[in-house]
């Protein structure tokens, strides 16, 4: 039987539009996002469970959930 790898969605921040406001940091319940050096937010994929709260919280709507292979 073929084993199908389950893809799990993770938050992805578009760095070219991120203004580093930090709203996503506050929205994340797991502390999986940090604003890196005041330039853009970065997601720790190991911590991210893809709940999507940062997606809703981002005022620029530049965070999306993308499926990443586990």
């Amino acid at each position, binding site marked *: 039987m073929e084993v199908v790898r389950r893809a799990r969605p993770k938050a992805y921040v578009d760095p070219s539009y991120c*203004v580093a406001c*930090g709203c996503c940091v506050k929205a994340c319940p797991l502390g999986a996002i940090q604003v890196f050096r005041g330039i853009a937010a970065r997601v720790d994929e190991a911590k991210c469970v893809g709940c999507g709260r940062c997606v809703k919280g981002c005022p620029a*709507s530049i965070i999306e959930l993308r499926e990443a292979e586990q």
Partner: protein
Amino acid sequence: MKKRWYDYLWIASALYLTLGFFNILFAWLGLLCFFIPLIIAVVGGNKAYCNRYCGRGQLFSLLGGRFGLSRKRDIPRWMKQKWFRYGFLVFFFVMFFQMLWVTWLVFSGARELGGAVTLLWTFKLPWHWAVPAAVTPWVAQFALGFYSVMLTSTVLGLLVMVLFKPRAWCVFCPMGTMTRLICKARNSGKE
């Protein structure tokens, strides 16, 4: 999540606008909102002010989020693009220096103290009751000008809060854009 002292800075922002309605000299306190983010960006190389201490952002979060005054729609694409953010920063700078120029004219005696606050760089709102009688004219003029800047940005912020997401203002906030540029310059070459 446990609340920290800086989670209540929205009270300071609301208080600032309220106090300026009664005595315009309180507007000088707004300089803190100018210098603190700049100092944090220059010295610390980060945007901790935007991320933690911005009372105005917290106020928008509260009104748009908990009080449900925001439609929570996506902002238009052009509003998050560089040309708009940098263009708005330049525009804000020009208006800020124009305000400083008027203050200089009052200081030098070339112009009399005006008793109005200018909203959205256009509408003159009478504010004479908030100007104390015994005050150096240029001190009051700067206060009126600075309060105009703060009131205008708050009104714009509230407008985009209602139309789009609670903290939509943060996307093109001139202070945020400026501090991010400082952070970029300061941290360039670092990984």
